[in-house]
């Protein structure tokens, strides 16, 4: 009964999404007040229906209803409670349902945006476009990926959830990332509806808070994914340039650019075309990400659906939404307001930084699809992986990080006269600290020095407004978020640079009571044993860590074999503090009581995730303050 009910609500959501679109283009009434009232109600109904759908699917999981195909293939009775809930979005069908649910929540929230009520045309059109997007994806779900499909006769036991996904971080990683992806639909719809209606830069003001909020989710989702990869995939890596990771990074670059470009557009009324294009491409890239993950054209750890029909449908949606948006853009976009820009004014520098961010996104895109293109042209199969990306990303990023700091000191509209005087002391301090740093940690390479310098430079310039105008910080809602955003970025870059330059990885074979030394740390294998988990069998090692003879900690890395899969999973032992991570993974039994052990010393690794946390904090403050500010304006 439950799946049929779910089916009904899914169709109801589909119908209301269509009505939302049709109402918005004025099919039922020409009067704005009528349309707005209608759309508000239908949006609420759609969100409500999808919430019920989601609730019903969750119930099916909790009741172990294996007569539902999706439940049978993603859960079983042995699965712990929390993971039964996580399993709701553990597969293709459920994650798409989550996708549209989140889209409807964003739509609902946008319909409640009080500031937007002052521009009814923009409001109606954008909600209408969101309705159309929702309609497209609901059609996709009903047509190719229905989570409520029955499996008869129903099996006694389900296939279980992929053990890789049985992890707390992975419970919240997909919803967070999706909230970011889907949130970009809001600036997209505002930009396109602006082109279709008023065609001025007013949309930028309304889009800012929404862009920052989706950026917050996107940042959080990516950071969580990286954190998960670090401790769950078992080899101590935290970023693999996997196509799926790239799919989330590209919209992130563009969302970051959009966030900054909107500041200029709102404040000065310029770069409207650029902001519009960014809003369109940012969402297009999140659709592209959905396509890459869902179609299986790129073989990756993450892509679980590889059905050409599904891929074709998403590609159709991508073609339709992005294609029509770009056509509308090319027809409607007015020429930029002609205004001479001063090359060292803040707007110029922001534009320059955004150009670097776009170039970064472009590079990641080229690297990701290049193998596909070569293969199609029958030029053979190649791999484009970490060594390539780690190298090319330096080209836009080194100048980007430098000019971020300069931009902080620049003035609006004008070349600030003594810009060089203002920045040179900080450059000097950053350089000196950088040298001191490489002196303490030991000389590694010029690139390391550049990395550390740029990180410190970004952090110091991020802090500088605090020193410059100690008491007037409240003047603008942008300063604190900007400071936190830049400090967070600098901290992250510091972590990335130091951990990749000074990290040590050591594969060793160890016997019981034997010690292995990595950096200043000694690792002693004291025990190897077996233990039973709820749905797995684990082989664990107990490893005593000490430094200069001083006991530090004992960790218990494991190798698990889950009931549902024969591939052993590595559960690393991690000892961490702010300054370093010690990472131990158990390898295989070499024989003769000897085990291969994977030992890592990773200095300042944590900063890679502390940075984004600070950035997110900045974003959240901006969302909160921005909302208050626009409300005060009303």
């Amino acid at each position: 009964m439950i799946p049929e009910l779910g089916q009904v609500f899914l169709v109801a959501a589909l119908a209301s999404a269509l009505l939302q679109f049709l109402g918005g283009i004025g099919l039922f009434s020409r009067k704005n007040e009528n349309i707005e009232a209608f759309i508000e109600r239908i949006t609420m109904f759609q969100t409500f229906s999808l919430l019920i759908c989601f609730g019903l699917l969750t119930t099916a999981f909790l009741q172990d209803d294996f007569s539902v195909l999706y439940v049978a293939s993603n859960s079983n009775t042995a699965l712990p409670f929390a993971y039964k809930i996580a399993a709701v979005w553990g597969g293709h069908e459920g994650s798409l349902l989550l996708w549209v649910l989140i889209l409807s929540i964003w739509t609902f929230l946008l319909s409640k945006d009080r500031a937007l009520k002052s521009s009814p045309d923009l409001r109606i059109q954008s909600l209408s476009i969101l309705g159309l997007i929702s309609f497209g994806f609901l059609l996709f779900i009903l047509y190719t990926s229905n989570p409520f499909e029955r499996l008869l006769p129903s099996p006694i036991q389900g296939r279980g959830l992929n053990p890789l996904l049985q992890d707390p971080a992975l419970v919240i990683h997909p919803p967070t990332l999706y909230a970011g992806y889907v949130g970009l639909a809001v600036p997209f719809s505002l930009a396109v509806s602006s082109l279709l209606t008023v065609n001025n830069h007013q949309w930028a003001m309304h889009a800012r808070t929404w862009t920052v909020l989706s950026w917050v989710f996107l940042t959080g989702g990516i950071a969580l994914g990286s954190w998960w990869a670090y401790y769950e995939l078992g080899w101590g890596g935290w970023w693999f340039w996997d196509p799926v990771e790239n799919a989330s990074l590209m919209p992130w670059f563009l969302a970051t650019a959009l966030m900054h470009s909107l500041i200029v557009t709102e404040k000065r009324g310029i770069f409207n075309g650029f902001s519009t294009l960014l809003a369109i491409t940012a969402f297009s890239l999140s659709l592209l990400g959905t396509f890459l993950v869902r179609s299986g054209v790129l073989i990756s750890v993450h892509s679980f659906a590889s059905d050409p029909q599904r891929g074709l449908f998403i590609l159709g949606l991508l073609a339709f939404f992005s294609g029509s948006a770009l056509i509308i853009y090319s027809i409607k976009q007015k020429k930029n307001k002609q205004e001479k820009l001063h090359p060292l004014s803040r707007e110029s520098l922001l534009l320059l930084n955004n150009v670097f961010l776009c170039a970064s996104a472009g590079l990641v895109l080229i690297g990701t699809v290049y193998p596909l293109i070569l293969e199609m042209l029958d030029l053979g199969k190649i791999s484009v992986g970490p060594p390539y990306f780690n190298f090319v990303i330096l080209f836009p990023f080194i100048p980007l990080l430098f000019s971020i700091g300069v931009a902080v000191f620049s003035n609006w509209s004008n070349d600030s006269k003594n810009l060089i005087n203002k920045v040179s002391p900080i450059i000097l301090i950053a350089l000196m600290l950088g040298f001191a740093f490489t002196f303490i940690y030991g000389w590694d390479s010029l690139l390391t020095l550049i990395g550390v310098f740029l990180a410190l430079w970004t952090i110091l310039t991020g802090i500088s407004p605090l020193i410059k105008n100690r008491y007037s910080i409240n003047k603008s809602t942008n300063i604190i978020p900007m400071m936190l955003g830049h400090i967070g970025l600098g901290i992250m870059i510091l972590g990335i640079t130091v951990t990749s330059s000074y990290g040590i990885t050591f594969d060793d074979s160890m016997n019981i009571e034997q010690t292995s030394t990595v950096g200043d740390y000694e690792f002693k294998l004291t025990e190897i044993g077996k233990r039973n988990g709820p749905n797995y069998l684990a082989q664990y090692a107990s490893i005593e860590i000490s430094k200069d003879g001083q006991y530090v900690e004992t960790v218990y890395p494991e190798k698990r074999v889950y009931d549902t899969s024969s591939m052993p999973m590595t559960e690393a032992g991690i000892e961490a503090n702010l300054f370093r991570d010690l990472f131990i993974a158990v390898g295989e039994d070499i024989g003769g009581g000897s085990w291969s052990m994977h030992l890592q010393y990773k200095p300042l690794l944590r900063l890679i995730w502390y940075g984004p946390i600070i950035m997110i904090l900045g974003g959240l403050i901006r969302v909160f303050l921005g909302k208050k500010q626009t409300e005060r304006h009303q």
Partner: protein
Amino acid sequence: MIRRLLPLFIFLLLLGFLFQSLYNKDTELPSPLIGKPIPAFNLKNLITEEEHSSHEIIGEVSLINVWATWCVGCEMEHEFLVDLSQDKRIDLPIIGLNWKDDDRLAKLWLKQLGDPYSIVLKDPKGKAAIDFGVYGAPETFLVDSSGIIHFKHIGPLNREIFERDILPLIGELN
């Protein structure tokens, strides 16, 4: 106007590529060994424990089949291999390369399911398999009388694939 259309143009180009790639489901890796002689090796015979070098086993057009008892695809193709080995018209010796396997299980397998191989060499450490560029059993190579590799099939072999891809090549080589 043209500048305005540039994003659309790039987008359409990308779309075209993505559309094509949906239908390009060729998951097999092309082997760089095609047209080259088989790699040199010294491997023990599974049954007799006698050592054979790569030179000893070449001399006529034959198949080299990489298999293991732990491999599911190998079980699927085994019946066909047995049929093929008994086909007097085709008369194609099949050389078995037992990859990272347990001797006892491998012998039992041949006893129970039939032995299609003219000779079975064993590669317990997987060193020869790396030289052959093997990445997933079963894999089958077609080798001519001078030891040059002409074709590689990845995955279970069956009559259809054999008659489509391998049989015409054998005709040419003889």
